[in-house]
């Protein structure tokens, strides 16, 4: 009876021998989802997450940047890299405001993205609409695929 009392006290944090298994199962599920789910690769772990795509003429970089103003973003393209830097500011509300929930984050971000080919720096176009940044980077002429005619 002494053993029963000791092993059931909440302080020990040991409700049942299977708690640890449940936790391990959940962790494995999360890991499995991340590795196998829906064709997503592991992200770079840097804010902002981007979606990068291309067609024969351009590279396209998209990122979700809600609440960021166009002036607070600095984009630079050099050779085959694009750097995306900026800051998200959350305006301070007047005092007397009591927060119930605070999930959004403010701060600075800085990210470099490497492309497989050079881009034409002069013709890079970026637009920020509804919190979505879209950067169109035309590929440098020599990097575009050329049709080779077979005679």
């Amino acid at each position, binding site marked *: 009876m002494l053993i029963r009392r000791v092993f059931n006290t909440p302080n020990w944090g040991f409700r049942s021998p299977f708690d640890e298994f449940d936790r391990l199962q959940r962790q494995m599920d999360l890991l499995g989802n991340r590795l196998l789910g*829906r*064709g*997503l*690769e592991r*992200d*770079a*772990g*840097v*804010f*902002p*997450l*981007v*979606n*990068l*795509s*291309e*067609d024969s003429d351009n*590279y*396209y970089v*998209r990122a*979700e*940047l*809600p*609440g*960021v*103003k166009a002036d607070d973003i600095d984009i630079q393209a050099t050779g085959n890299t694009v750097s995306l830097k900026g*800051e*998200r500011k*959350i305006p301070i*509300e*007047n005092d*007397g*405001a*009591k*927060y*119930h*929930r*605070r*999930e*959004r*984050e*403010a*701060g*600075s*971000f*800085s990210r470099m993205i490497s492309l*497989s080919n050079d881009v034409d720096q002069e013709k890079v176009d970026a637009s*920020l609409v*509804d*919190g*979505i940044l*879209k950067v169109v980077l035309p590929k440098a002429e020599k990097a575009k695929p050329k049709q080779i005619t077979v005679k």
Partner: protein
Amino acid sequence: MSESKDIQVKDKQEVASPAEQTKPGPVFSPDVDIFENEKEIVLLADMPGVKADDLNIDLRDDTLTLIGEVPGDADEDEEGIVTEYQTGRYVRQFSLSEVVDQEKIDAKLEDGVLRLTLPKVEKATPRKITIKTA
């Protein structure tokens, strides 16, 4: 003077949708800040990619429901190289304990951030009752 810290990456929170969706696609829960002061409750939600026409705000039975539709972004001709985030609609529900003046709800959508102002009902001001003497 205060150095701004770096924003950390946070995966978008995908939710199992509460009801059957008519359109396929993932459903995400937007990050929100909620605060109140004496006269109103303010809710700020990050919903990038949602336009004003695609945002649906519903308040009934003390439950506030936000639904924002997001158009699919990439054109079909593009070939994806890296896809780090998915796009999908945003849905979130809150239960309101305070009584809200529904006529004066104000919603503003700017840069993908929704600012929803819910004024509290003014408490009835006590009225002094005068007694008329016949």
